[in-house]
Structures are given as C-alpha cells and as structure tokens.
C-alpha cells in the first residue's frame, strides 16, 4: 500500500461516484499536547469474537498492522445508515486512492436487499510515523478511582461548563472525588464519596509505594472543562466499569470498559 500520510480533506459523496483526490502528501504532525482517546478491543484475541469475519495483512509479517487516518465524521455518517442494517462490510480498497469502503446491507420490502456503499478516503500512515500513534501506557498515576454515576457527573459538569472554562478533578485513595470550579463570581464544589479505588496488580513493586501513601491526600489536576464534558456526552451506554487515574497536575486518564470494547481518554492538565 503506497504511503500517503496525508489528511483527507473533503467529506465524501455517498455511493458510486469517485472520491475526491487526496491533497498532496505531507507528514502527519504528531500532536502530543492535546487530549487523546483510544478505543481498543477489550482483549487482543477478541477481534475474532467481535467481528464475524476478519482478514488483514499488514505492511510486513513482523509489522502486521495498518495505520489509517480519516475524518471521523465521514465514518460516523456512513455508520448512521447502518443503524438498522442486516450486515455491514468494511473493506480497505485502493482503486484510485486508499478508501475505506463501507457496504451496508439494508432490509428492504422486495426479495433482494439494498446495499448502500460509502467510500471514505483515508490516509495511510507511513511506518516511520507509527510511533506517534502507539497506544500510550497507563501512566504512573497518583490516584486511581472509580467514577461516580455518569449521569450525575454529566449534569454537574454541564452546569459547571456554564460557569467556568476549567475544572479541577481531585481524588484520593479513600474513594472520595471532588469536582471544583472557581471564578471571580462563584465557586462550586461537588463531593462524591464511597466510590471505591480499583486494585491495580503490582508488577514492578510500584504498588507498595502507593500503599504507603496517605489515603486521604488528594491528587488533583486542572483540565479544560469542555473536553471533560465532551467525553461524558459521548457516553451513550453505561460502561461496565468506569475509572480514572490522576497524575497530580499532569494528566487525567479515563478508562471506560464495556463488554467488547475499552475506551481510554487522556486529558492533559492545563498549565
């Protein structure tokens, strides 16, 4: 597959017609300061369980992966037509340029079913840039805590968003979490208790230092409230497990586990 590495520009016409040509190639800029999210299968072997059919061949045997870049809205629009679909097939093709071909088989009144095809232009990311997109490791956090009921968190953060641009998340190892905002006009603090702290398996003796730490002391980070609100607004279904790890004043790492899928969000702290 020819490496293009360019960002697809325009949103795509729906079926049949030729996708617009990609703009001239340029290296994808690595962005390490912004928030990042990861969706991954809950376990690496479950790809087979999640999909009915799964075939791929990567760049080379020892690098059996393909990294693609696309405009999320194109994919979400294509998948919207799949809400009541009988089947969906996704193929990576390279007719005139690399495209993700999403073929949605829809139920129809006549005997033959309708197939709607979306071609979404994608950029193939060259191997030399793959390191920029590696799933980050779980950071050495100060506190790890289960999140409160997402519905409550959503309401509170929505209201706080009207009052301030940034929010402080603080939590301790006694299952307490506070969300705080403070401006000239108002300060609001919401206190959550009895949330529970997830046990992390100790691998390198790190866990022992965590246990020594004072259970009451809070780790905190100030983050952009819009990013937090977007993260919460994106949760349509209640996850099986939801927790966050806080590295004091550096980053907040959210993990939301569903049956088949895990979502991870990293929101860096504001200066």
């Amino acid at each position: 597959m020819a490496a293009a590495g360019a960002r697809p520009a325009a949103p795509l016409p729906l079926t049949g017609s030729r996708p617009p040509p990609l703009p001239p190639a340029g290296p994808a800029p690595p962005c390490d300061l912004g928030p990042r999210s990861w969706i991954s299968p809950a376990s690496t072997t479950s790809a087979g369980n999640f999909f009915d059919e799964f075939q791929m061949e990567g760049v080379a045997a020892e690098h059996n992966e393909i990294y693609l870049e696309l405009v999320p809205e194109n994919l979400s629009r294509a998948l919207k037509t799949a809400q009541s679909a009988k089947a969906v097939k996704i193929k990576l093709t390279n007719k005139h340029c690399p495209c993700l071909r999403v073929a949605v088989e829809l139920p129809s009144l006549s005997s033959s079913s309708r197939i709607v095809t979306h071609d979404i232009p994608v950029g193939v990311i060259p191997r030399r840039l793959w390191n920029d997109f590696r799933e980050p490791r779980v950071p050495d956090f100060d506190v790890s805590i289960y999140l409160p009921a997402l519905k409550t968190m959503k309401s509170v953060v929505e209201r706080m968003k009207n009052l301030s641009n940034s929010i402080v998340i603080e939590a301790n190892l006694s299952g307490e979490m506070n969300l705080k905002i403070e401006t000239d006009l108002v300060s609001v603090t919401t206190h959550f208790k009895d949330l529970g702290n997830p046990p992390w398996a100790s691998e390198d003796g790190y866990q022992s230092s965590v246990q020594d730490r004072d259970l009451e002391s809070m780790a905190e980070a100030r983050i952009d409230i819009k990013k937090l609100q977007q993260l919460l607004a994106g949760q349509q279904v209640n996850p099986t497990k939801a927790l966050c790890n806080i590295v004091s004043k550096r980053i907040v790492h959210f993990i939301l586990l569903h049956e088949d899928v895990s979502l991870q969000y990293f929101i860096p702290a504001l200066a």
Partner: protein
Amino acid sequence: ASLDNARHLSSLLRAVHFQDHATCFATANGLRVTVEDAKCIQANAFIQAEIFQEFAVQEESVTFRINLSVLLDCLTIFGTGSLPGTTTALRMCYRGYGYPLMLFLEEGGVVTVCKINTQEPDELLDFDFCSTKVVNKIILQSEGLREAFAELDMTSEVLQITMSPDKPYFRLSTFGNAGSAHLDYPRDSDLMEAFHCNQTQTNRYKISLLKPSTKALALSCKVSIRTDAQGFLSLQYMIRNEDGQICFVEYYCCPDEDITEAEL
C-alpha cells in the same frame, strides 16, 4: 433557609430570568427576587416562608444583588429533569453584607457546595401600583392565554392591550410585518374568571419587554391583568408548585406611549 425540593425555587426563578442580575430581598415573610430591564419592566417572584422547611432572617430584612444565571446554574446543578422520586435538597445561607450566598445542594448522597458572590443592591423601580388605583381588572385562566403569548408576532414592536366594559372587552393586538393580528376574549368566556372593567383603555407595551412573561404564564394556572389610570400594566401569575403550594410572580410594565387613547 432550607428546602426539600430545590425545584420549588428554581422553577419560579426561571420565570423571571430575563436579565443576568437580580435583587434578592428577604424578610421573615419570605423571599422576593426582582429583575428589571430598561427602567420599564420589573418582574418579581415571591416565595413565601411557608414554602421552605426552614426560613429564618436575623435582621428585619436582608437585601443583595446576585447573578441570577449563576444562581440558577447552581440550583440546577444536578440537572433540570423532574424525575419522580429524585429531588435535590437545598440549604441557603447568607451571613450578611459583603458575604457570598452559600448554597448546599444534595441529591442521592452527592453534595455540592456553591459560593456565589453578592453585590450592592440597586435602586429598584417603584411602580406604585396599588389596588385602589386600578381602573381595569381581568382574571383569566392561563391556558387561554398560553397559546396566544407563545405565538405573539415578534415582528411587531408593541403588544396592544385593550380592556373595555363594551366590545371587544379584552383584545390583544400586534402590528407586524405580515399585518395586524387581533385576539379577542369575550367577557362571558369560560376562561374569564373575573371581569371588572370600568373604562375603555388601549395601551401599547414594548413586546420585547413582555415576551419573557410567557415563562411565568407557562407555569401558572391563573393570571390577573390590571391597568391603572396611566396605563401601567400589572400581570400577576398564580403558580402551583409540585406539592400544590401557591406562589406568585408579577410583572409590571410601563406603557410605550404616554397617551392613553379612548377608543370609540
């Protein structure tokens, strides 16, 4: 003050929320929240002490100015949805001049503490509207007016209100880009609870000032419409809350032109 269901307060305050700032006035009788605009319109929400589970005022009265948008965001911090069974409990404290208003809200074991800064209260308009000076008075069931107010032609600059002992009795008129619209309510209509018109009066009011009163109308079950000799308008809305208690919201508005026309 403490309140088992914060919605009793927040829904009333929303009915007068057309400016960012409000003046709060508390006495042993209860709380009055006033919002004004353009020196022409004033809305008051009254929450009497009986609505609260606890209501105590140390001095004779306490007055401060506060950002109403911020207050409403805090009162509804756990959401505005009125799910049966979930209520937000509220406790409000105000130490005195210069101190912030403290709110403690609790729902489902989660506690939110808010500290809202207060300011010097402004001089409030005194419409000097007392029942002895009332020329015309009508009491209507709100459902009759709701649709009319929701569909007011906003391209009209004014809302004209005609009240008369003779036809058309009670008429709302607008003069917009598409033309004039008149809505008449006969005095013997089922919706009319009381009709005391002594004089024919036609007054015009800036429609943009009156439009926010639609919120109060939407919550209310009855509305009393009164005008005095100068054409000042008083709208009083009787609102029944979730527990069946009664509260009042009133809007006072100056007429757009000083002239009160006698229409023939």
